[in-house]
């Protein structure tokens, strides 16, 4: 092929000079390609960065490199839940076997057992706290430490408890009016009776005479009724806390500490505490504060902020409930002074406090936190408190455990995510208990209880059915009644008899729903996934390995969605480009009929003409594609230099995995951009090239005159 290179050079020269000769056409076509290339580079850099950020956040906080669950599960794993609630997963009855199988795969660093679920927490110590205060007063009086001050406090505390009981009674009456009372009527009637008693003046006179029995009545009969109304859904991951901490470096204990090894306990999601537990008026003030100071938003004209202002002011009943008459008087005094009015009605003062606008907000925010907050309990429970967590066990029955709150936890990058940031963490044993699986210690305990109570043994088959088939649970209809913490329910005692053979110290021995696998080298994820599934098959297990993105469910799909939107936009732009380039080249070809005919007459084969038109089209594509990619890279660089794209909202904060998005330019983005541009320019040149090859040498012979 001597001269082939020279021929190519000439083709290029013809192409470029031609392009230069028809500048306007070239600039229009090139402009579109340029814009497309910029969009591809910038867009895919942004999406890639979001992808990488979310991957790092989710892998580093919950998913690990690979998630493994039972392939026979009815639903796919969804770490952060899905629209349909918790996925229905087939459990691994003996996690140690799963771990052993996965450990045979080379490059596996850690296998962390997990069990995800939702439960209900009954923070409900408002009533308990009030009764406890009363009890302290009673004790003080009994000890003879009298005095007018104690007496006043005692009266105030009595009034507080009584008012709460009255509220509970009103709630119950309301519920009875709405609901068909035929079912549960016996229990309801008993509750109504109790509440009637607790609100009667006779009862409170009785309190003075026989304080201890009266307090007991309040704690045992009335407090549980208060719990029921305030159940809040909590999402948790039950795991071995030590292994979890090692595996997930994104976990941060923002308050408190990790439960010591062997201890049970709960780490409450920080955002969960803020969003669901905190006194709502305080939460709204926090949100307003952040929006105004961080995002420079204004209450005036901002619908969302105006709504928050309204909601903050609308929560004063919740706030008033917390205060006994003495505290209420103190609060009124403080507010009156801070607001500088002579008003002494707390309700009116609060209304005044929450009449927020852009001018008074920061002062009012300070008044709330400096004056009012010290008198209030902002969260229903503090680190160190115990909470009751109730969940539906696998069998469908309610189970509950009392857990100490050891701390507040958050995951870096997911702090503000409504999906991922509300996750709480609990120890594996508590999860197993909620799930309805018991370890050897509990089983021994239960055997003792059963022996004492003379409980009937169920056959093993029945136990299986009871444990794993929610629909066959007719045998114990009463056990599922929600309410105050139940002792270990009966069906759970029957299950998992095999657990008794296991060493109680090994947290891996027992049930788990899924496993997070940490690899030495994250690049090996696809290979590791195949090997894990193969190892499962060899071990007689049905392991399904998924990536963080699949495991994260809807959250993981966001990136895919963003990518899809980008690709659709790119597709549209390049489809338009394709049509325009095609048109322009067809026109150009028709104008060059004589030239092409001459070349054909002189001896140019059709493929030469074909190549000539394509080279021209590709030359435009490559030249402007390169320029566009460079420009796109420049835009990415500029965004970085300017400090990134700030996250304007909590949702953005989550997708950006932090307060701002610093896009990174990937070689992939550039390659994709150039690839698409090349493809488009080749495809758009095909039809004009075909037309050009149809030009016959005869065209050269036609003279103009």
């Amino acid at each position: 092929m001597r001269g082939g290179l020279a021929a190519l050079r000439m083709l290029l020269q013809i192409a470029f000079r031609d392009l230069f000769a028809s500048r306007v056409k070239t600039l229009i076509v090139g402009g579109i390609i340029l814009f497309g290339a910029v969009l591809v580079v910038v867009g895919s850099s942004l999406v890639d960065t979001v992808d990488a950020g979310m991957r790092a956040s989710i892998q580093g906080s919950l998913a690990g490199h690979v998630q493994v669950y039972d392939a026979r599960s009815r639903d796919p794993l969804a770490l952060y839940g899905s629209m349909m609630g918790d996925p229905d997963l087939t459990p691994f009855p003996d996690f140690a076997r799963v771990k052993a199988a996965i450990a045979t795969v080379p490059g596996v660093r850690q296998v962390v057992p997990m069990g995800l679920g939702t439960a209900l927490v009954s923070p409900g110590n408002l009533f308990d706290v009030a009764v406890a205060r009363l009890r302290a007063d009673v004790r003080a009086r009994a000890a003879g430490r009298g005095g007018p001050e104690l007496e006043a406090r005692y009266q105030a505390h009595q009034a507080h408890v009584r008012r709460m009981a009255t509220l509970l009674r009103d709630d119950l009456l309301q519920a009875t009016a709405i609901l068909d009372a035929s079912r549960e009527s016996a229990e309801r009637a008993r509750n109504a009776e109790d509440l009637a008693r607790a609100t009667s003046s006779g009862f409170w006179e009785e309190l003075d005479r026989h304080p201890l029995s009266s307090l007991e009545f309040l704690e045992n009969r009335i407090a549980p009724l208060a719990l029921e109304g305030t159940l809040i859904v909590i999402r948790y991951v039950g795991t071995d806390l030590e292994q979890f901490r090692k595996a997930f470096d994104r976990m941060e204990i923002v308050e408190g500490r990790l439960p010591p090894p062997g201890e049970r306990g709960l780490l409450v999601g920080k955002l969960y505490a803020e969003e669901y537990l905190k006194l709502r008026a305080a939460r709204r003030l926090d949100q307003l504060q952040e929006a105004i100071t961080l995002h420079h938003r204004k209450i005036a004209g901002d619908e969302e902020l105006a709504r928050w202002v309204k909601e903050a002011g609308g929560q004063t009943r919740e706030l008033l409930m917390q205060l006994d008459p003495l505290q209420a008087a103190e609060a009124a005094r403080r507010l009156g002074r801070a607001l500088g009015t002579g008003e002494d009605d707390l309700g009116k003062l609060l209304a005044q406090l929450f009449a927020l606008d852009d001018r008074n907000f920061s002062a009012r925010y300070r008044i709330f936190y400096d004056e009012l907050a010290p008198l209030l309990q902002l969260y229903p429970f503090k680190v160190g408190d115990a909470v009751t967590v109730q969940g539906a066990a696998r069998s469908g029955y309610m189970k509950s455990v009392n857990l100490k709150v050891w701390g507040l936890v958050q995951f870096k990058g997911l702090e503000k995510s409504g999906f991922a940031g509300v996750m709480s963490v609990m120890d594996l044993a508590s999860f197993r208990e909620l799930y309805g699986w018991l370890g050897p210690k509990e089983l021994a305990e239960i055997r003792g209880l059963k022996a004492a109570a003379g409980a009937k043994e169920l056959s093993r088959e029945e136990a299986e059915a009871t444990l794993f088939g929610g629909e066959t649970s007719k045998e114990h209809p009463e056990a599922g009644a929600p309410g105050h913490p139940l002792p270990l329910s009966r069906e759970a005692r029957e299950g998992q008899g095999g657990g008794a053979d296991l060493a109680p110290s090994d947290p891996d021995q027992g049930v788990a729903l899924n496993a997070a696998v940490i690899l030495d080298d994250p690049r090996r994820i696809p290979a590791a996934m195949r090997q894990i599934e193969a190892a499962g098959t060899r071990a007689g297990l049905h392991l399904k390995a998924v990536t963080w993105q699949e495991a994260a469910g809807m959250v993981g799909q966001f990136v895919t969605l963003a990518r899809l939107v980008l690709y659709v936009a790119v597709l549209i732009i390049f489809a338009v480009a394709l049509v325009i380039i095609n048109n322009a080249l067809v026109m150009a070809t028709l104008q060059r009929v004589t030239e092409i005919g001459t070349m054909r007459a002189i001896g140019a084969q059709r493929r030469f003409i074909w190549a000539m038109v394509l080279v021209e089209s590709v030359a435009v594509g490559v030249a402007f594609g390169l320029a566009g990619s460079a420009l796109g890279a420049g835009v990415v660089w500029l965004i970085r230099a300017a400090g990134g794209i700030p996250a304007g909202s909590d949702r953005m904060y989550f997708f950006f995995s932090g307060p701002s998005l610093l896009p990174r330019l990937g070689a992939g983005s550039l390659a994709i951009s150039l690839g698409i541009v090349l493809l488009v320019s080749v495809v758009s040149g095909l039809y004009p090239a075909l037309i050009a090859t149809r030009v016959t040498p005869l065209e050269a012979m036609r003279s103009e005159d």
Partner: protein
Amino acid sequence: MVESIVSVRDVTKVYQLGKTEVRALSGVSLDVARGEFLSIAGPSGSGKTTLLNLIGCVDTPTSGTVAVAGEDTARLSERALTELRLRRIGFIFQSFNLVPVLSVEQNVEFPLLLQGGLSGRERRARVGDLLARVGLASHARHRPSELSGGQRQRVAVARALVTRPALVLADEPTANLDSQTGGQVVDLMKEMNRRDGTTFIFSTHDARVMSHASAVVRIADGRIASEREAPPREVATGAGS
């Protein structure tokens, strides 16, 4: 007729123009010997361009045969015909038909690049030599648009000859030139014919151009009106001096 480079046998060419048939050529036979400097003469629409197109392998006859350099063009594929044009035939067009975006030397080099096989140095030598012979060595880097009509046609002559073809076809090569420039171009062609023995067939209706021919074939209404008559003498002496 062993020496004939072109052999046209009983050729008819019919064009379809809408519903009417146009008989451009009917029953034309012609042999051209190597080294001839043949003029095809006739009024517009007489069929001389059609005859040149058939000889130049850019068109095929409706009936009859056309053989160029011993090859029956009816038996060749489109690709082989292109190859034949590239290797054996040079073209000079009425409107010069240079590639506007290429320089003078690139235009001349173009057929050599299509042929391939020559090194860059060989190509440059050949192109330089030809440009010197047509008197445009100093214009090698110019674009066609920077040249006069006569200069452009001389570039076209150089391009037609650069592959050293056996046959050069020129359809009305002087029609777009004034008579003096046209005369110079014909002189150039004549010189190439004498020096290299390249066969030239050109059409014209200009008697002064015709006078340079070694023979004139007159064509009228798609038929050969007179074969091999002598060129018009009075003009021949005038232009030949």
